[in-house]
């Protein structure tokens, strides 16, 4: 014979600590607490991190040489910005609806990947398909994603009370897409395999690295 569990069933289990004497709270020495930034300073820091990340990309592109702007594929110009807009809010959503948040992150990640692949297909052309060229470009793309990833993790340190792994992964995804967009401003190689492998490396690796390593920093 079976019956359904009623909500009140849980309340049949007595609380073994209910009879605890309400001992005085341990004293909290406010003066000894380390300085912590308030909301205004945190928001300013995050804005500064975005500006520094964009400046970092610009300096790298200028430093290693920008491609001819007139020949820059139009499709590429938009996907980095679009993906950033899509990915960033997911990491900043307030604490409610774990399944919805994770679902949104997965959807955004898939969408961002799809946008990246479609943009690569649309803009594919001639280029060097050698492994050496791919490796060199992948290293440059990863460097372009690493800076924003580190900045993002620093700006969001102690920010996530729960779900730090996937939220930090979302920051890594945004940074990886920024790196992938920035490398297109430098690299004139339009071979499809080169675009997907070398330029796609940060899109794949930055979220993983952020989730695995950065979550320790961003967890509250």
């Amino acid at each position: 014979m079976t019956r359904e569990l009623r909500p009140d069933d849980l309340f049949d289990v007595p609380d073994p600590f209910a009879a605890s004497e309400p001992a005085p709270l341990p004293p909290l020495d406010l003066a000894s607490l380390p300085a912590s930034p308030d909301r205004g300073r945190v928001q300013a820091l995050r804005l500064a991190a975005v500006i520094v990340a964009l400046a970092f990309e610009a300096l790298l592109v200028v430093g290693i040489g920008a491609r001819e702007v007139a020949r820059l594929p139009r499709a590429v110009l938009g996907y980095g910005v679009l993906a950033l807009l899509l990915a960033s809010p997911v990491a900043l959503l307030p604490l409610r609806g774990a399944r919805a948040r994770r679902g949104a992150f997965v959807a955004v990640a898939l969408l961002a990947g799809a946008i990246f692949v479609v943009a690569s297909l649309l803009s594919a052309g001639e280029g060097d398909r050698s492994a050496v060229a791919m490796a060199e470009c992948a290293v440059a793309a990863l460097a372009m994603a690493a800076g924003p990833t580190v900045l993002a993790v620093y700006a969001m340190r102690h920010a996530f009370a729960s779900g730090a792994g996937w939220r930090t992964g979302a920051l890594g995804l945004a940074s990886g897409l920024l790196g992938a967009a920035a490398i297109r401003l430098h690299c004139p190689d339009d071979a499809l395999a080169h675009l997907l492998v070398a330029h796609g490396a940060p899109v794949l690796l930055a979220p993983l690295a952020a989730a695995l390593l950065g979550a320790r920093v961003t967890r509250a």
Partner: protein
Amino acid sequence: MPQAPPSTATPSEPAPQALSSASSARRSPEAARLSAELDRLMDRYASGDNAAFAELYRQLAPRLRMFLLRLCGAPRLADDLLQDTFLRVHRARGSFTAGAAVVPWSYAIARNVYIDHSRRGRDRGRASLDDLEESAQPLAAPGASPHAELVGKRTLDVVRATLAKLPAMQREAFVLVRFEGMSIAEAAAVLDASESAVKLRAFRAYEAFRAALGATGEGP
């Protein structure tokens, strides 16, 4: 100690799907008012009003201390973890989202503190026997008959021992829903899990309690 015969009132095979947000229906207007007051205090503190922290601590610390006590089973350890929790709340205050609920946020931080402590000691799965003995409480109401006192003591001993033996995820879910009075949605937010996962974990815990108490003839 001889075992009493199983209680005939012990229910059989309830279904986890039927478990609903029991505690939300039990929430009084007074509790909602206190919760809103806590949210306002945290919002003031996050905005830079340091004076709000002492009041926030006074109002929030007793709840968090009981939560930590129920997780770890040791009053002195719970006090240490409470201090660490408020240090992290202080550190993360700038990341507290305006308009968010401070209770699930602070519980999630307290849980992080407990998890970190347990990882250091590799004992997240269960509390030690010393801890349980340390937390022994008066178990029957003043003036209760010796028999009622004995039954109460045995029941709470069984509950305490079963709680300590539960897998961490089940214990957390059960403690939040049964003892902390959270709704399933609130517990899911704290645990960064889906509501169905929280229901299932609480149900598994309830099954364990039912088996343990049924074996002693004390219900539920």
